[in-house]
């Protein structure tokens, strides 16, 4: 195991038109917002038929210079991380998409992987990232009238008043 976290092979390896990096030996591809759906379609055709996990990271307090992204990818505040599995080839593939703070949205992957329905709702609930075309864009874990998105780095873990419906004010 090398100490270096991201080893960018030279010349940059490409997969489905995206740059490939390796994080601790795990294959990661970096898609852009624009080619996100197209990349997923190519991945499905390449037998990555199962999306096991979709989550997000808020990089607000993490200097983007330290983020070990390949050249050509600008670190934005949010990042969507998908983990795909190929049952045929017994492989995992991770896909990372940068999402700028100015436009916190992404097309939904629901049409390709219906199993991302709850995961996208969770990401919306926790990070406020909207998924365009999602059939049920509502909160999933927090109460529906909750304000704010708890897993954002600027959401304090300090004391906050209870925000439930009908709570005495």
């Amino acid at each position, binding site marked *: *195991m*090398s*100490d270096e*976290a*991201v080893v960018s092979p030279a010349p940059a390896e490409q997969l489905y038109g995206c740059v490939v990096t390796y*994080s*601790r030996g*795990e294959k990661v591809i970096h898609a852009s917002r624009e080619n996100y759906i197209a990349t997923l379609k190519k991945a499905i055709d390449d037998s990555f*038929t*199962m*999306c*096991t*996990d979709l*989550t997000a*990271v*808020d990089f607000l307090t*993490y200097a983007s210079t*330290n983020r*070990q992204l390949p050249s050509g990818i600008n670190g934005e505040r949010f990042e969507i*991380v998908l*983990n795909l599995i190929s*049952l045929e080839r*017994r492989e*995992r593939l*991770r896909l990372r998409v940068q999402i700028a703070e100015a436009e916190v949205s992404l097309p939904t992957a*629901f*049409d390709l*992987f*219906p*199993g*991302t*329905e*709850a*995961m996208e709702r*969770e990401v*919306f609930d*926790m990070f406020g990232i909207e998924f365009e075309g999602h*059939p*049920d*864009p*509502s*909160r*999933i*874990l*927090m*109460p*529906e*009238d*909750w*304000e704010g998105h*708890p*897993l954002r780095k600027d*959401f304090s*873990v300090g*004391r*906050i*008043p209870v*925000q439930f*419906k009908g709570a005495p*004010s």
Partner: protein
Amino acid sequence: MTSNLITATPAATGEGPQEMRSRSELTAKEVLREVGSVLRMSEKEASELTSSPVENDEEQTMIINMGPQHPSTHGVLRLMLELQGEKVLRCKPIIGYLHTGMEKQAEELTFMQGGTNVTRMDYVSPLNNELVFSLAVEKLLGIDGDIPERATWMRMLLSELNRMSSHLLFMATNGMDMGAVSMMIYGWREREEVLRFFQKVTGLRMNHNFIRPGGLAADLPAGWRDDVLTILEGLPSRLAEYDILMTNQPIWRERLQGVGVITAEEAVALGASGPILRSTGVAWDLRRDLPYLKYKEVEFDVIVGSYGDSFDRYAIRLNEIRESMKIVYQILDKMPSGDYRIQDKKVTPPPRARIDESMEALIHHFKIFTEGFKVPEGEVYVGIESPRGEIGCYIVSDGSPKPYRLHMRAPSFVNIQALPHMMRDGLIADAVAVISSIDPVLGEVDR
């Protein structure tokens, strides 16, 4: 300062309501969500479904709540069911009643303390949660190849025993849900024997925080082998009783066969894993297909079903207990001697005796328990086979002693999405059978 927030009116934050809407407000898209995309149904077909005359008659259907405090929902799962007579037309699981912000909490805890947090997510198989967390942290540290053999085999032993205890609990709850009340007592009884062993080894029956980054908290106690053998020798006759009481019993079969059917394509599309995926005939077990620990060196069968119904899921779990017993026997044979944790000063505290004689050991001990250890920058995802399916741990580290982001891919959270699909057009009496066969743990669903 806080009073502003309290008096603030609940602002229209833009997101839709969580509850199931009545059929008059139902859009084609919503039907599509339940069946369409899974079955690759076009939007036109879906809209025809919503406008079919019988279903559109709102007087004939009603929406009822099942849960969040219904005993057969395994905790605080709330289902909104639209019924037409006894038939379930639509179902929407509503979750979040047990949400305690554990992923947010994890960002405030060091890697040293993280185990206490993750072990409380899936409280029925806590050791698997700790295991996946530890594996992810070790991968980030780059010490995943240096874990002592004995630690690895001990982890496998505990993980397999935990799989048995979890499936035994499923036997109990599934029996109870179906009305086989004596089964409930039997299942808990057998599980208790495994938990008694855990108590002897880890000091606790549940939420052990025993598997830690770098190895385990302690070595196995004297006499552990006899204790494991007692469990293993007692179980087969009990499992044979289960076969008499349930598997071969016509009432039991009638109750479960053909209920909550899901096909292989649907299960893969929905991301379902574990016994649900295997019940459809897909032989996918991470222990065999993406092996971790030493699963390459043990022999076991991956149990698959063929119909994708509740009975298959029951039978798979029952036989997985037997497979786990097989694995545990092999572990007993192969358990090497050696250290139970890595002696890497960065990760593990010094032995207790050293603290009395060495100033450096004392400082080291103090530092590791107050500040924790620093983990190099990077991001990893590790997935292992928990009793419920793939449990995954995604960690982003910024080089500090606390994870920058920790996400647990909870198998129950994803598997619950299959519920509306399995229940559609079934009977309300079967709803309980379907929920039970998913075997959700709500602590993990809501985190």
